């Protein structure tokens, strides 16, 4: 199927342009007053938003416990550096494994729930991890959080450190989005989409939907854990508040703002959210009102999100003969009522 790779769609052009822009960001930074650290943060935030997107936009489940996986990734990474003195990449892997472990514990409780029940339970379990991080002061530093010393990255000199980290984040981001795309275009991913639209029918086609949900939760945790680990390394710091479900809400907001159910929506939403929050907080101490207003405005006026609205306006083309091309042309995910 070589023609798939060679096809030039408007979507691909825009994606390529975005990537070029991102690649040039360190040189552009002084001119647009957006420095690399904040864009790194936005890219890593996107990975966490993708984790929420997989559950919300594709499977149709409200993922309000993902901050816990993010936090497990962060603490897993930090603790492995502190106690095991590991290398940069190993620490990240440790973080992801910690998140995966958390998911394995929590998923059996979540897997049979849908709708509100799933949402509330995911918040509740997320809070357990939050309290553990808060209480185990000896290990995690408690409320004040924990400093993370960034292991020396082999190929950077001291002055380029932030920029080197930025390129690392960019590479990880690109890999993540490619992985995400591969997952949602795979038969597994297509089944998740079907579950969102009509779970009963999926079961009556001979598929155990719970199995799919279970794995989706695990994959989601891995993405969130990756985001958490690298964020800890970026900031040199983690605190229990990053596991609080408010953080989960932020991931979900970024997804919905950009367009849930699309591959690139979370990137758009994350950039707006992270950079926007940064800018507004320098203008007023009451930036939280604006975040709150954004939630309200987005839910009421903009449920499809930016990318979703664009796709809808230009007529979401029907899926082609090659279902594998679904990500750009798939109609955006407007949650519909699920069957039992």
């Amino acid at each position: 199927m070589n023609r798939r790779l060679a096809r030039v769609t408007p979507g691909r052009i825009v994606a390529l342009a975005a990537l070029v822009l991102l690649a040039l960001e360190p040189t552009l930074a002084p001119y647009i007053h957006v420095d690399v650290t904040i864009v790194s943060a936005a890219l890593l935030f996107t990975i966490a938003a993708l984790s929420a997107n997989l559950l919300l936009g594709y499977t149709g489940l409200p993922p309000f416990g993902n901050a816990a996986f993010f936090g497990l990734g962060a603490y897993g990474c930090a603790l492995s550096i502190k106690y095991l003195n590991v290398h940069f990449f190993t620490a990240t892997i440790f973080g992801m494994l910690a998140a995966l472990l958390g998911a394995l514990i929590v998923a059996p409780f979540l897997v049979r729930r849908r709708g509100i029940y799933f949402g509330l339970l995911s918040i509740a379990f997320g809070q357990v991890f939050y309290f553990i991080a808060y209480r185990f002061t000896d290990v995690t530093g408690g409320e004040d959080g924990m400093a993370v010393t960034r292991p020396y990255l082999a190929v950077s000199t001291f002055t380029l450190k932030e920029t080197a980290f930025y390129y690392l984040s960019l590479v990880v981001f690109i890999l993540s989005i490619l992985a995400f795309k591969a997952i949602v275009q795979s038969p597994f991913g297509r089944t998740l989409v079907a579950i969102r639209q009509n779970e009963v029918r999926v079961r009556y086609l001979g598929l155990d939907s719970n199995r799919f949900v279970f794995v989706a939760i695990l994959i989601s945790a891995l993405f969130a854990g990756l985001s958490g680990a690298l964020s800890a390394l970026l900031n040199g710091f983690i605190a229990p508040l990053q596991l609080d479900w408010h953080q989960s809400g932020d991931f979900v907001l970024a997804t919905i703002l950009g367009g849930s159910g699309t591959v690139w929506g979370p990137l758009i939403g994350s950039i707006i959210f992270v950079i926007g929050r940064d800018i507004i907080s320098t203008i007023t101490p009451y930036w939280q009102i604006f975040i709150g207003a954004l939630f309200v405005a987005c839910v009421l006026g903009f449920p499809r999100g930016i990318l979703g609205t664009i796709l809808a306006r230009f007529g979401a083309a029907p899926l082609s003969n090659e279902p594998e091309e679904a990500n750009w042309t798939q109609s955006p995910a407007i949650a519909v009522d699920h069957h039992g």
Partner: protein
Amino acid sequence: MGDKFLLEAQDVSKYFGGVHACEGVSLGVREGSIHAVIGPNGAGKTTFFNALSGFYYPDHGRVFFGGEEITRMPNWRRIERGMSRTFQTPSIFPELTVYDNVMLGVRSKAGIAFHARTPSGEQQAAHERRIDELLGFVNLVRFKERPVAELSHGSQRLCEIAMSLSTEPRLVLLDEPMAGLAESETERIISVIRGLHDRLGLTVLFVEHNMRVVLGLADRITVLDRGRILAEGTPSEIAANEAVRDAYLGKEVLEHV
């Protein structure tokens, strides 16, 4: 008794908050037959269907399929065993094309629905042929690329039937296949149902309350009334049955029988 019938229900009862929706219903569907379950509204037909197909489990009684007890078997497993069903409101994937709607069942049968790897070119081509075959049976090939939401109610129902065939069932359960259809569309569904039996050799169990249609289509009829079996037999036996006429009293259709 167990191996004569492809599907057998023994004394199936289901209660909802103290009200019996169906009670003590026993029924046997012979392989290769078209069996109808009829009754006035509220007779418990869909409840019975739901218990048979695993939408929920009966409070009392047992269900057998191909000799194997399936009373509490998860619904998706029953599909693996060779059952399939349609619903009163066509249960399809509203945001996908007709093609993608049928694709999932094909992939499920091929055992690749859970895979992360996209199917090879050869596999994909085989699946596409199968989809064309299924859509051809219900005459929807020309709508293959259309979003299923754009189709008429009747065409959506045909799409659903194609989907229920994609898992290669032995038995197809159709819940009020004629519901909400115009007269012209009804004829088409009838011929498709007959085709399921005559051309594909499938066993069909369907729920309906249009007596005229049922008498013309079914080999065997079970009549339910208020959750219990009222009568069972061949179409001529049922048409002559006094109790059945009473239950349907006032229904215009019966006068034409």
